[in-house]
């Protein structure tokens, strides 16, 4: 019953939990599809100090049987209740190499500079950073693209207030990284005809394997970088984030979808020697056609 539209973005910012479209009753055999293109400015990787501008493909399809594609995730709505949404999903986790996180869309900039410096596996012992390479991913192993398994559970506290939970498993070098993203979304449909604004705030909790993959430094990587030690972040809260999405239905078929997100790394992730800046932002806008 929910009419709120969440155009999930096939973003190169890989660790953002995919948003699932709302329960979507429709005639048997029908579907609701958005396809579009736009631009986005996103961090080169989580914790990078620089943003890059990239093309933004937009894809969202919902079928009457409950199966949906939303950006880089595929899922299945199993709930029959309009105040609840849950089901399994698969999410494509992106590749990260020395150029940053990539889904193979657009180009990436080259990093230059000196070596990475970190000295201990304890986060609070990383005090010296002045000699860091200006590309901190230079000596890091490539994190390969993975398909993650998971599920989602969303609950409507009221028609305008939704609690979302997305759990994914399978990330990381050993395919055992888990991440739970929980967010509260407030949906405003009455701002003006054809305009919908969604405010959201959320937190991500990860296990050690996940954090080690994206924010850790192995002994081999440290050796390559000429650094003194490795870094093994533990499990815990990885980041907190706030965002706003604005959808403008220009016509029955055309929609302009724009968004902005600010996220701040916390805990062991924040203390990683890979992190240049704990607070990152991303903005995007895209034009989508509704089929």
């Amino acid at each position, binding site marked *: 019953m929910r*009419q709120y539209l969440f155009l999930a973005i096939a973003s190169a910012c890989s660790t953002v939990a995919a948003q699932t479209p709302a329960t979507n009753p429709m*005639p048997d055999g029908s579907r609701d599809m958005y396809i579009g293109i736009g*631009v986005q400015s996103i961090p080169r990787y989580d914790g990078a100090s620089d943003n890059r501008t990239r093309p933004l493909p937009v894809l969202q399809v919902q079928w009457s049987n409950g199966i949906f594609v939303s950006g880089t995730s595929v899922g299945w709505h199993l709930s*029959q209740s*309009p105040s609840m949404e849950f089901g399994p999903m698969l999410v494509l986790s992106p590749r990260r190499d020395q150029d940053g996180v990539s889904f193979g869309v657009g*180009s990436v900039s080259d990093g230059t500079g000196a070596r990475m410096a970190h000295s201990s596996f304890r986060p609070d012992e990383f005090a010296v950073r002045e000699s860091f390479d200006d590309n901190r991913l230079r000596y890091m192993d490539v994190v390969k693209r993975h398909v993650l398994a998971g599920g989602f559970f969303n609950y409507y506290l*009221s028609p305008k207030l939704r609690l979302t939970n997305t759990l994914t498993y399978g990330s990381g070098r050993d395919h055992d990284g888990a991440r739970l993203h929980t967010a509260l979304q407030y949906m405003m449909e*009455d701002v003006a005809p054809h305009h919908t604004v969604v405010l959201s705030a959320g937190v991500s909790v990860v296990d050690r394997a996940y954090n080690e993959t994206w924010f850790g430094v192995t002994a081999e990587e440290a050796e390559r970088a000429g650094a003194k030690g490795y870094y093994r972040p533990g499990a815990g809260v990885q980041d907190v984030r706030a965002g706003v999405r604005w959808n403008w*239905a*220009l016509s029955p078929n055309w929609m302009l979808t724009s968004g902005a997100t600010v996220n701040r790394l916390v805990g062991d992730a924040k203390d990683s020697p890979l992190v240049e800046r704990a607070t990152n932002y991303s903005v995007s806008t895209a034009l989508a056609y509704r089929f």
Partner: protein
Amino acid sequence: MKTLTSLRTTLPAVCLAVVCCAVQAQEEWVSYRDAYKQMVVFAKYGKPKNFLQIHYEVSPRDPVATLEGLHLTLTGKNTQLNLPLDATGRAVFPLLKAAYDDNAVLALNRRMASYRFAPRVTILTRNDGIYESTDLRAACEQALAYQRFIDSSYGSKKCSGVRFVFGNRADALVQAKYGPREAPLPVVDGPAFDGETLGVYRTATYRFADWSAQGQVVSQNTPLAIAPLFE
């Protein structure tokens, strides 16, 4: 890099052009798909609803907006339907696969910003005008159960009564009966439905707490609507 550079310059220009065209072409419409998603929930609702009906309601958002002369039309490639609005702004909503697949629109002949669009669940009227009190309570409970189904914030609310809505004061003759006790329900001017502030109708409210569960309510004329009341 060349591709990216050209994208950076051309994409915003293309987007701007499309946006300008789209804005110029914008009309007063509501997406049929979006409305369908709201309305079909009632059709698929599996719990008791034999006392209930659902309409698509167009209600004024500001005092100057009126329902007089208002026309709602379903318009698509292969669909063209006039959806007549009753005196309370409600229309029977057709659930049509063809219109959904065409991405049809609900078009309004007025400025859309002045109106709200939403499903409205009301209690079915009877031709004989005689309503058993137990039926009205059951109808209100059905409506509340449905409301809780679509909006969990209604969990703490309770049924307090039903409101008979009329257009003319002369029609608003509603009597409550319980054994020898018989009294007309007071008629007041006000909005037709819970949660609305605009619109002036003649309303007679039957509060459950004021009457026995075994009585009757007799309406001399068929009301425009019978609305459940939750508190």
